[in-house]
């Protein structure tokens, strides 16, 4: 399985580097020392491909950790208010500090995302809901509330245009890609903490018995999720479904031992978004559609299949 994912990854990266509105970036041209080709590769294609890989890997991991912490397969940064709060934070940085560097924007987005996520999880823990689907539903309402607030504030301060430009995720945006490299830090952290994230999935007492400080690890996990969500949001905008479907597909293969699955999950998430991105560049070539759209369509269909299969499977189990 791993070999397959890696092979696919290599092919897709190569393809992603070759495709674009400017033709001529081919291995042949590069080997011949074609300068324009080289420049396009260095300043446009490589950053773009790196942004895809990092944001996809990041969001997949964020979803995986979110699902481990909440013990809920329907959770993701998009169903806990995290992404929406990141958007709100971005708007705040825009309003208070006007045009800022990506780092400051990310910092704002991160702080708001973290606070909103902490608030949500602590409320959820207090409610002790039995039904797992209520939690992401509540989370979506909560996120909806935040984004409504964002829109209202944006109207009030004439920032609608700025928000609209972020509204759709895109890898064609120039300038902000560098921000996505921030994701590397939380990714490394999450690999280091993979076992701990799995263990806290088995409950507070269980974790404590194994010497894992539950609250600290939960906080760290939420911080990782918020930072990834904030950085990817500032760099490429929202990428829906990634944090939901990629972890679900990966854990149905590898189980919930994060240590075993986390690297493959990153590569798999990157594969998925690379495919979506290549498609969105090819479908209306030489123009391109927003990758959010492609991801939503493909991801939505996969998620539906997943849900239906799950429901069918459950029913089958019940009647036996």
């Amino acid at each position, binding site marked *: 399985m791993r070999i397959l994912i890696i092979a696919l990854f290599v092919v897709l990266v190569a393809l992603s580097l070759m495709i674009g509105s400017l033709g001529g970036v081919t291995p042949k041209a590069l080997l011949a020392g074609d300068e324009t080709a080289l420049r396009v590769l260095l300043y446009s294609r490589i950053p773009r491909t790196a942004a895809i890989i990092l944001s996809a890997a990041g969001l997949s991991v964020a979803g995986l950790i979110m699902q481990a912490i909440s013990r809920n397969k329907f959770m993701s940064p998009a169903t806990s208010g995290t992404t929406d709060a990141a958007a709100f934070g971005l708007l705040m940085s825009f309003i208070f500090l006007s045009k800022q560097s990506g780092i400051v924007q990310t910092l704002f987005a991160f702080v708001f995302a973290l606070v909103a996520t902490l608030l949500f999880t602590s409320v959820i823990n207090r409610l002790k809901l039995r039904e797992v689907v209520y939690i992401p539903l509540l989370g979506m309402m909560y996120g909806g509330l935040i984004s409504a607030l964002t829109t209202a504030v944006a109207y009030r301060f004439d920032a609608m245009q700025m928000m609209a430009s972020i509204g759709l995720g895109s890898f064609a945006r120039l300038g902000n890609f560098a921000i996505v490299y921030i994701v590397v830090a939380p990714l490394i952290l999450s690999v280091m903490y993979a076992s701990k994230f799995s263990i806290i999935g088995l409950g507070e007492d269980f974790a404590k*018995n194994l010497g894992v400080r539950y609250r600290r690890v939960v906080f760290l996990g939420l911080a990782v999720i918020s930072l990834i969500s904030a950085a990817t949001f500032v760099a490429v905008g929202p990428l829906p479904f990634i944090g939901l479907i990629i972890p679900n597909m990966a854990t149905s293969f590898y189980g919930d031992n994060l240590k075993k699955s986390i690297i493959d999950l990153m590569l798999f998430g990157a594969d998925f978004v690379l495919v979506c991105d290549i498609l969105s560049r090819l479908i209306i070539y030489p123009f391109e559609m927003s990758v959010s759209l492609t991801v939503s369509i493909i991801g939505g269909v996969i998620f539906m299949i997943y849900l239906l299969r799950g429901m069918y499977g459950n029913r089958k189990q019940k009647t036996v």
Partner: protein
Amino acid sequence: MIEVKNVSQSYNRHGQRKTLEDINFSVREHTITALVGANGAGKSTLLGVMANLLPALSGSVLLDGTDVRRVKTNAMAKKVAFLKQTQLLSIRVTVNDLVEFGRFPHCAGRLTQLDRDKVSQALEYMNLTELRERYLDELSGGQRQRAFIAMILAQDTPYIFLDEPLNNLDVKYSVEMMKIVQRLVSELNKTVVMVLHDINFAAAYAGYIVAMKDGRIIREGVPEEMITRETLRAVFDFDFRIEKYGGKNVCLYFDNE
């Protein structure tokens, strides 16, 4: 050494209704201590306080002279392994993964050869080697219980607390389980405190019995002293018939007058 000193505990915020009331006892080293008592007597709560999973309202639990509340979580995990009465099955992992989690206090997730050996040994002990790649949710209740116990074994701590470890085990595995626990004590010098509901298992395998009722320890002693009609009536409010069998007292709890 584990000593429980004047421990009281309550699940109410202001402590009106005490779950544990003024508990005092020292855990006997290198012995199996059986904790017995009716449902709701406070056995699980006491183990929880002793393992520092629940805070005591007053009093303290001393581990080698240090209050457990001051022992670092990781240091505690190397000293005491605690299997709760019920397990949360919230994540999908294999038997092998679970038992490897037991090594976490020692290796923080990076297993050395020693850790792998301990895992294999624990699996072997619980007769799970063949099932090691199976997911927990694909096992029978008893197999799953054995997997959790294997995890506790892999944790390899001097103190082991088991809350109703015979849950879900059939007679064969219950007896085998108790023999394994005996071997842990005799061969590996462990100290075990376990909640048992079957008084005969306690009588046959434990070196010491602590009986609880309504949050208090009402009797404690070696099995010979404890398995008497009078003591058992005081503990369980139930009349047992005591028969001699092979030099040991055996309790009969069916009304067959």
